[in-house]
């Protein structure tokens, strides 16, 4: 038994499958990072607050999610959540895996946002408060606009990292790039999909990294 069909033959015949996988990957990464950002912003505020109990909860949250493998988190979400929260019983399995991705991403994003906020000079907050600005106006009008230029490129990098992380979702039959391997293995294509998948991941991450670099340059100009 030889190598079988070459890469281009496989790509030519099955490109709709790879395209659907690529779209799935981009979609799951986008959902994970965008919803993870909303949740992450809350976690960041909890970690930045002066309340010690809130700080402790926030730091446990971040440490647990960053300190355990995403695959383990997905398994727990996949097998434990349906038992623990019966209300969720009707929803598709996709939702459980996505919950794991979102929670995982929120832990990383919360640290990005916290770092971005901390990077703004404390004098800015003092000046705003001394003018009589409320704490929330100080955050929304003074600190966050200045933090964004540090946060946005880091968030884009988190999206790039998440594109690779979502490959684990294929384990749970979610239609993304890695899942195309399972589909094509049924057609006795063993090695070709692996190289094609790796190539697509590489193109995606290199392309997005290049966009982030341009973005960072733009922000640097406005300094």
């Amino acid at each position, binding site marked *: 038994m030889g190598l079988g069909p070459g890469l281009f033959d496989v790509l030519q015949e099955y490109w709709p499958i790879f395209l659907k996988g690529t779209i799935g990957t981009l979609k799951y990464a986008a959902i994970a990072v965008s919803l993870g950002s909303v949740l992450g912003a809350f976690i960041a505020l909890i970690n930045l607050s002066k309340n010690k109990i809130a700080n402790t909860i926030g730091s446990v949250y971040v440490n647990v999610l960053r300190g355990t493998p995403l695959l383990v988190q997905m398994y727990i979400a996949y097998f434990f959540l349906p038992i623990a929260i019966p209300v969720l019983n009707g929803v598709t399995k996709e939702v459980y895996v996505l919950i794991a991705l979102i929670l995982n991403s929120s832990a990383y994003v919360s640290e990005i946002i916290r770092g971005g906020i901390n990077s703004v000079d404390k004098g800015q907050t*003092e000046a705003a408060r001394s003018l*009589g600005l409320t704490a929330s106006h100080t955050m929304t009008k003074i600190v966050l606009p200045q933090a964004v230029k540090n946060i946005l490129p880091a968030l884009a990098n988190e999206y790039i990292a998440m594109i690779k992380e979502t490959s684990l979702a294929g384990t749970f039959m979610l239609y993304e790039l890695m899942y195309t391997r399972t589909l094509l293995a049924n057609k006795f294509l063993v090695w070709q999909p692996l190289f094609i998948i790796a190539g697509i991941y590489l193109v995606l991450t290199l392309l997005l990294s290049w966009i982030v670099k341009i973005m960072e340059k733009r922000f640097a100009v406005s300094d």
Partner: protein
Amino acid sequence: MTNENNVLIETVDLQKSFGDLQVLKGISEKIYKGEVISVIGPSGGGKSTFLRCLNMLEEPTGGKVIFEGNVLDAKSTDLNKHRQKIGMVFQQFNVFPHLTVMENITLAPTLEKGVPKAEAEKEAMELLKKVGMEDKAQEYPRKLSGGQKQRLAIVRAMAMHPDVMLFDEPTSALDPEMVKGVLEVIRDLAQSGMTCVIVTHEMGFAREISDRVLFIDGGVIAEKGTPQELFDHPQNARTREFLSQVL
């Protein structure tokens, strides 16, 4: 002027500690409306901390600050209202780099006092004219010199119509050739009747514009008096030693 009805700010046994380090060891002082007060003293003596307690940027760990008859409390929501009447100018300017000069000035009045934008901008232009910066209204702070940034910071505080202005070493971070322009703006303010509390190392300036001078050392007011009393006839040995080093 030093009538009891005219007290603007009073501190009662004001104390502040950072961890084990007690920086203010009980300062009781009254600041009267229209007074210009200079606060001098060695670095680390507590003069900046004293100033920053007056608008609760530093929360006192003991004693209290009474502003216009209200005890300031960092936890009360009204603190923002009181702070609107206490302008503050910082050593490092702390202008908002992401906002234009105009936006720096109009942000707080429009946001916190509901002043219509057009009105706030009109007033901002008048204030900018006074400090010779009307042509800079649409610039971002990165295009300004240090002296211009500090004048902007003063104008930004003035736009809130404060009852008192606090200056925390306003010229210490400036290049020497920028100092004069900023001091002139402060002098104009002081002469217009604005109550001013100025932490400064500019002894000549302090002597010229102050009604009273406080010498803070070791967390207490070691000596106070008119500029003549304090600079020409200091009573305290520490005051004499300090003045002999800086004059």
